[in-house]
């Protein structure tokens, strides 16, 4: 397993895309710290990067990487290695490299400018969000044989969770505003990793004005600590559930 991960990591590093991604994150986080002295505001701006850019890059990069590794996977499958092991090595290596890029790109400036304490949730939820979208990318990769279709599906996941889902929740809340919607919103939020990550960060930053309906309710219902635990656990589930399903499909896939 470790040998396989090492070979895949070497391959990923060689494409240089990851270095580009790290540099991009570094530049934008340093830039934001330079522009504003208020750590709270900077964290808020970084949060938007984490919620939009990180999932997008993760999901697209992972899908492309998976298809570029098809030869490697084929070669390994004709060797005496467990199928699941090959698949998980690919997943772990991809997720690990993207999480590392994120931690270096956002974490280093955060530590340097002294925002690390307030930003710990930002780093945690950003990492988990990365893993969740790598996981979704692997699911879309095993669902179809065609690279273009898989990338399309991966982008659809991203679009759905970052934009469409929010609109849907808003619509539900608006339509049924005459009814008590607390529990329903709670369930709806749990079904979206991006929402979970946002609430997690907001609970720590304590920006009630920006928390929105679901966030405010979250805090009311759970209090900060329990709310954070609840959403953290759900976020971890989100990170691994798609790839577990994907493994089951990959087990039975013809190559």
């Amino acid at each position, binding site marked *: 397993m470790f040998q396989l991960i090492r070979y895949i990591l070497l391959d990923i590093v060689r494409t240089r895309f990851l270095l580009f991604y790290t540099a991009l994150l570094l530049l934008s986080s340093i830039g934001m710290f330079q522009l504003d002295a208020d750590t709270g505001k900077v964290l808020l701006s970084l949060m938007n990067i984490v919620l939009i850019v990180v999932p997008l890059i993760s999901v697209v990069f992972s899908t492309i990487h998976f298809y570029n*590794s098809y030869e*490697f996977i084929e070669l390994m*499958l*004709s*060797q*005496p*290695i467990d199928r699941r092991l090959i698949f998980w090595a690919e997943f772990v290596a991809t997720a690990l490299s993207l999480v590392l890029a994120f931690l270096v790109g956002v974490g280093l400036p955060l530590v340097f400018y002294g925002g690390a304490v307030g930003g710990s949730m930002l780093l945690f939820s950003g990492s988990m969000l990365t893993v969740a979208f790598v996981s979704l990318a692997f699911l879309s990769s095993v669902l179809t044989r065609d690279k273009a279709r898989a990338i399309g599906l991966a982008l659809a996941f991203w679009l759905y969770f970052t934009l469409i889902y929010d609109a849907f929740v808003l619509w539900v809340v608006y339509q049924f505003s005459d009814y008590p919607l607390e529990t329903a919103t709670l369930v709806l939020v749990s079904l979206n990793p991006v929402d979970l990550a946002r609430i997690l960060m907001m609970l720590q930053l304590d920006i009630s004005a920006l928390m929105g309906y679901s966030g405010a309710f979250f805090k009311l219902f759970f209090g900060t600590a329990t709310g954070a635990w609840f959403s953290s656990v759900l976020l971890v589930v989100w990170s691994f559930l798609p790839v577990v399903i994907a493994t089951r499909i990959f087990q039975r896939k013809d190559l």
Partner: protein
Amino acid sequence: MISISDLDKKFGRLHVLRSLRLELEAGKAYALIGPNGSGKTTLLKCILGLVIPNEGEILVAGESVRNHWRYREKLGYMPQIGRYPGNMTIGQLFSMVSDVRKASTDRDEELYEAFQLEKMANKRMHTLSGGTRQKVSAALAFLFRPPVLILDEPTAGLDPVSVEILKDKIVREKENGRLIIISSHIMSDLDYLATDLVYLYEGELLFHDSIARLKAETGEERLGRAIAHLMQAHLPSNA
């Protein structure tokens, strides 16, 4: 050595293999032939576990193939079109495969040397020509002295000198008691290499017997003509 029973595979609506039964023994070389799209590669990929059959069972040395992977230690596979990670060099590829096979010693580097791959060890895989890639595939298949060799069109794309090197190697390994399965369309090669014939037609087994007996029955000297004879007997409408 390999025993296949009631193997059935469908790709969607396409019925590729139809309840195939086959026994393959060690020390023999099987020529797997049939028209394009008759299921030869699918059959080989089923044995390798790359394609999962809908029904039926494949036993390699008594071990079922389904959901197992350790039996692949016994297999050496040379694919029809070798596809390898483009960023790797030949040297890296060989050390990686040896690494995951956990076989750094007792490797059979005869073909690696005969094809002079050492000289090209620093070339990246995506820069290689189709023929060189075939040589890499061949050298990898024989590298770990597997008891079963699965060769999917091994001589296609190789230059005449390399073809002879590979054919000599196959004959020697057959005499060493290995089981060899060769899928090919080149009858003269098969005539030289194979001892038995497996003929697939639209996913069904049409003929399975020794080549010597086929030749005796049809009264033909050359394999190509003997098979033509056979086809006429089996498919009168196509004659």
